[in-house]
């Protein structure tokens, strides 16, 4: 295989992996910027993945599946909100609890409803999955040199959710930095007292943020079960929620750097898959596990202040009381 074809394929794999990461990381971004730690990303994503696949399989409509995925993730987000915002419970515990609950609930419901050992049925009917959208002349472009290949492999041929995720970054940045809602959201995560004295409801803002996180996790989960694969399987998030959290921290709680972190982490994943068992010159076979652990190591180094400094929203994790 020619080198540049390899690189383009690597980039394509990166985009596929980055999409759910990015959706989840943006979800976490909204929640965390409002001051609510989002350890429930994994659970909300997994719940949405199950609901989307189940509904899509049952109704034959991936759009209804997406709706179900969003509703499920929002419901889970509201559980976290109720525990942490209304009752000022421990945010870390609430997120973990929801995640663990969903890890069990998905296969349990799956078994009861579909009797396939906890999975959902294969989504192979028309309209049951988000499929690639092929852009005009993509096939022709593929035969052309590099720009054409990039067009065919990267811009074209992605599914709708990938484009959605890509659009989400500038949109989120616009929300955060150009709108009233964004200003208040950033304020409430830094100094809720300032928000309260300005006559704005702290809890109201945080609920909105948590719900947005739910919606975006809904997209992320739906992508996993109806776009990246064809159906729900147990533990299919496989830590992506936590990886998204790491990306969000590595991105210093900002939209564009978070995109960068997601792409970096996705790239390490794609690279690890490519390098599986391949002997490289000089270094020989690189253990893929080390590449896969890289995002976590980088995040720890960042948290320790060894590679730059990530400053968390000041009020994060602290329940608000007057």
């Amino acid at each position, binding site marked *: 295989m020619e080198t540049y074809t390899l690189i383009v394929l690597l980039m394509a794999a990166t985009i596929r992996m980055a999409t759910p990461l990015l959706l989840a990381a943006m979800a976490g971004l909204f929640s965390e910027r409002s001051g609510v730690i989002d350890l429930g990303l994994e659970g909300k994503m997994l719940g949405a993945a199950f609901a989307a696949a189940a509904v899509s399989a049952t109704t034959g409509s991936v759009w209804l599946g997406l709706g179900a995925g969003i509703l499920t993730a929002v419901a889970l987000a509201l559980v976290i909100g109720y525990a942490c915002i209304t009752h000022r419970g421990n945010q870390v515990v609430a997120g973990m609890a929801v995640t663990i609950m969903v890890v069990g609930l998905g296969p349990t419901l799956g078994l009861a409803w579909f009797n396939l050992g906890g999975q959902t049925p294969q989504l192979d009917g028309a309209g049951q999955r988000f499929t690639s959208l092929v852009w005009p002349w993509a096939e022709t472009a593929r035969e052309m040199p590099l720009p054409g290949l990039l067009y065919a492999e990267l811009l074209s041929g992605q599914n709708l959710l990938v484009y959605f995720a890509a659009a989400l970054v500038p949109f989120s940045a616009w929300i955060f930095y150009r709108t*009233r809602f964004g*200003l208040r959201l*950033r*304020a409430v995560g*830094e*100094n809720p007292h300032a928000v309260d*004295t*300005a*006559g704005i409801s702290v809890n109201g803002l945080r609920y909105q943020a948590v719900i947005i996180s739910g919606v975006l996790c809904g997209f992320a989960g739906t992508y996993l079960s109806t776009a990246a694969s064809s159906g729900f399987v147990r533990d299919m998030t496989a830590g992506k929620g936590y990886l998204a959290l790491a990306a969000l921290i590595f991105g210093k709680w900002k939209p564009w750097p978070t995109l960068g972190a997601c792409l970096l982490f996705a790239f390490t994943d794609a690279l690890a898959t490519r390098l599986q068992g391949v002997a490289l010159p000089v270094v020989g076979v690189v253990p893929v596990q080390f590449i896969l652990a890289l995002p976590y190591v980088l995040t720890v180094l960042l948290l320790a202040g060894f590679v730059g400094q990530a400053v968390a929203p000041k009020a994060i994790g602290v329940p608000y009381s007057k």
Partner: protein
Amino acid sequence: MSKEPAAPPFTPPDAPPALELRGIDKRFGAVHANRAITFAVAAGSIHGLIGENGAGKSTLMNIVYGFHRADAGEIRVQGRAVEIGSPQEAIAAGIGMVHQHFMLVENFTVLENVVLGVEGGALLAGGLAAARAELGRLARDYGLEVPLDAVVSELSVGLQQRVEILKALYRGAEVLILDEPTAVLTPHEANQLFTMLRALRAQGKAVILVTHKLREIMAVTDRVTVMKQGAVVAEVATRETSPRGLAEHMVGRAVLLQVEKRPARPGAVLLTVKALEVQDRLGVVRLKNVSFALRAGEIVGIAGVAGNGQSELLEVLAGTRAASRGEISFGGRDLVREQLDPRARRAFGLAHVPEDRLRMGVVAGFSAADNAMLGYHDAARFNRGGLRDEAAILAACAAKMAEFDVRPSRPELRLAAFSGGNQQKLVLAREIDADPAVLLIGQPTRGVDIGAIEFIHKRLIALRDAGKAMLLVSVELDEILALADRILVMNGGEIIGELSRADATEEKIGLMMAGVRAEVSA
């Protein structure tokens, strides 16, 4: 301090007051924080609200700003009765407040902070542009220049305060409350603030200055209301009073405590402090060039307005805070150079009753017995064979409780279940029981009931007579006068004067607390 003509520039004689409080009453459980408070503030005037810590000033202002609801009473703005149940409603009624702890988002720009809550639309761009124009006007009118695009955390405290004032004005405040605004300011910044307040007055705003500093009241206000124990005890025109007159109202004559004591017989020097300096994390100098000596058998009182370095002095002596330079000699050691931790200092006979008991001196959720040995948990008398000697711990606590009359005398009870006075007696018992050579005491009777105050004072005198050296920090001048044999007065992190008890009067100390240097008596 320049004398300004205090006459309000324009207020028609028949105009209703900008803010009027009628019979405001508030209780928190057993504490009667505000008792039927009534007073009025005219537009175009600066009204002082003065009183000691805990007099109920902050509670009252929090009611006016909608953080608390009064149990009874009425708030009238421009002659109309208003219901204020939230800050939002206070803002709508034209009331603005600058809190003691700023309500600013530190990583936002000045402009963003000002518009937060009044953005003027779903998108920021329009609102920010409008705000920029309006703030330019306010800056011209009131001399409130602030770099609008600077990030707040990079501004000086004085400028941050200015942002708070701008926030209130931008929201259309006609009544501006400032809660202890100078607590965090340098004298120069405070003077700048007063200039701004006078400009506000000239524009017809009503300003309420909440403070416990007499100097500020005299410098800038037109009228002053004095609060004590939740009630208004006096309301006078500033011109017709004096710092001394106000102090009398604030402190009151009736509560002067009489503790019998013989003259001190100071012995050998036990603790010497030389050129001590402390900087906080931000590099601000909190203590500078502090030197003094402490002798056996004497109580040295540190007087001063809260926040002038007394707390830092206690902490740096006790070892919970690091000194940046200087020397603390005790028992032949230099505690600064050796960087001894509090435990080691205790072991050498330097005990400490911290100012803020609940934050630092105890663990409220632990038993009284555990608290009665906190800091001494390594001592041989509380351990046996590698384990805690529970029986000894309980017995020691029971003995302390008996000796210091701590009630209920149940060592196993959670400390939080005891009253403030009983908690304090237990802390004192703990530190005295260790038989230290030097005892550092901060606010020995803060939050303590009258009966316990007398008991604690007697114990401290007895301890002095037993030859201990004591350094006493208290915001209660009465307490210092009652206990101390020598008084050091602190201002701005420095010791600016020393008085023997015989020479000390409230007036002299008050002047020195306000920063007026006096001849140092030998």
